């Protein structure tokens, strides 16, 4: 493998601007890439095109009124954002959540994980060039999950379903039978998808060995989520620091060795199967009871601060809330998973070609709503 300096032709690197509008589906992200021919030498990210000042707006909304705004952070997996925020406030105010609400939260969070991975895998393959076919196959499943969520709370993307102290309303009676049917079909769909793509030579040629993130770099950059697990770090908040009632369920954490794009794809597909397992266990054990603790709408937590983190589909999503005993938080900071995962992009991309840059960027799975907040 010759370095580019040994060629006899005089070349010089040039800067290419991969602008905020993308042909791929990842939102408004701008990169200035220094290229030498086709090889990427350096990359400078420029983001902030979707900044809406959500953390500042938190100081002007009440605690309950902020929940709809957390939906808009990582809009691909809105229920997880709601859950993280509610956990932070409950930790701060010392509220205990009833059992039925805990089980419902787990079922919904795992459904949301499946939905998010559907888009993540589909978008990565779309960037690789498979002309929307795998994307649409998985998007069908995400539509089914949308239907289930619409049955619960009335909306398909910005749910506003979790409340401080539980969930907002009880599930209708057709939810659990529909969820059963969905589970059975999802098994078949995942198997067919594996059959379709697991050994596809073109995908292996494009994604195997490409964009390797070594384990030490991942730990140093603070990467979490499927990206870290693909690099060999066996860390999942549901097992290492259990929140809610995750310690009652039995599931595995898929990890891979190398940390290339193909491993990240495999980790996500396996996580979908494991989430299905959790849902099946939880569905059998849902007790009766209230779905929300007796908490007023305008809640005034005692002064202090709290940090709560959850295993969102993209990684570790954390909320740090400082309160001064008024109806609005004094400060609310969101640990943006996608932004911290994005800081490793430069390490992963150096030395690869432009086409690989696009597929590596797709495999990290970021949502600009979370990066820019």
């Amino acid at each position, binding site marked *: 493998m010759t370095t580019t300096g040994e060629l006899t032709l005089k070349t010089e690197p040039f800067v290419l601007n991969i602008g905020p509008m993308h042909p791929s589906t990842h939102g408004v992200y701008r990169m200035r890439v220094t290229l030498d021919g086709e090889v990427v030498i350096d990359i400078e990210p420029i983001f902030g095109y979707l900044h809406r000042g959500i953390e500042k707006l938190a100081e002007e909304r009440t605690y309950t009124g902020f929940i709809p705004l957390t939906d808009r952070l990582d809009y691909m997996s809105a229920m997880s954002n709601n859950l993280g925020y509610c956990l932070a406030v409950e930790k701060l105010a010392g509220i205990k959540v009833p059992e039925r609400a805990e089980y419902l939260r787990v079922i919904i969070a795992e459904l949301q994980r499946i939905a998010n991975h559907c888009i993540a895998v589909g978008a990565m393959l779309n960037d690789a060039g498979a002309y929307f076919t795998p994307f649409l196959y998985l998007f069908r499943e995400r539509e*089914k999950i949308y239907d289930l969520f*619409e049955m619960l*709370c*009335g909306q398909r993307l910005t749910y506003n379903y979790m409340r401080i102290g539980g969930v907002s309303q009880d599930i209708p009676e057709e939810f659990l039978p529909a969820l059963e049917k969905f589970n059975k079909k999802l098994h078949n769909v995942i198997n067919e998808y594996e059959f379709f793509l697991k050994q596809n030579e073109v995908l292996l040629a494009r994604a195997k060995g490409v964009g390797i993130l070594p384990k030490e770099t991942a730990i140093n950059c603070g990467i979490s989520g499927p990206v870290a697990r693909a690099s060999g770090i066996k860390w999942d908040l549901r097992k290492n620091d259990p929140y809610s009632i995750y310690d009652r369920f039995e599931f595995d954490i898929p990890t891979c060795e190398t940390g290339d794009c193909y491993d990240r794809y495999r980790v996500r597909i396996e996580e979908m199967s494991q989430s299905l397992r959790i849902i099946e266990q939880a569905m059998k054990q849902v007790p009766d009871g209230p779905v929300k603790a007796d908490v007023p709408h305008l809640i005034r937590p005692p002064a202090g601060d709290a940090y709560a983190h959850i295993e969102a589909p993209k990684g570790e999503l954390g909320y740090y809330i400082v309160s001064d005993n008024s109806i609005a938080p004094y400060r609310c900071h969101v640990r943006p998973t996608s932004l911290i995962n994005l800081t490793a992009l430069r390490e992963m991309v150096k030395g690869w070609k432009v086409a690989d840059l696009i597929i590596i960027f797709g495999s990290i799975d970021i949502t600009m709503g979370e990066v820019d907040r």
Partner: protein
Amino acid sequence: MKFERYGIGIIKGMAVTIRHLLRHPTVNQYPEQRLNISRRTRGNELIWSREKCTGCATCAKTCPQGAIEIVTATNAADNKYEVEKYRVDTGYCIQCGLCVEACPYDALFMGYSYERAKYRRGDLVQADDELLESPQRPASGYFHPDIAEKLPRQTLLVEKITEKRK
């Protein structure tokens, strides 16, 4: 980066695609066939009940956007405020439903419809009598289980589109 499996993966992929060709597509022809939306949908408009409203303005305080404006007068006949003006800016509303949840007198409902585009921005601000319930503006069952029971059942994708050709 070698060819693993000697081309079998590609053939498997092509088999899956060809099988999909023979299945029923997961498609709904929109203006002719409409699916039933959820009974608890948070549709695009807000429905207000003049009889039950007492002008307490809990909804206006709860709204994160401040889209509800209430003006009351103290013409206290049978212990209620007289509500002079109840104005909602549906363009500013994010359909979160916190107002419906907060109303202590069950006087607010979310709308059941979604085809409510207007031609002018000024038409999005609705006041008083435009907000009442009517057959053109049905109410949805969000936080109102009695209304939810009467609405038609939601069509679910897991049930509707079968994998066989009809």
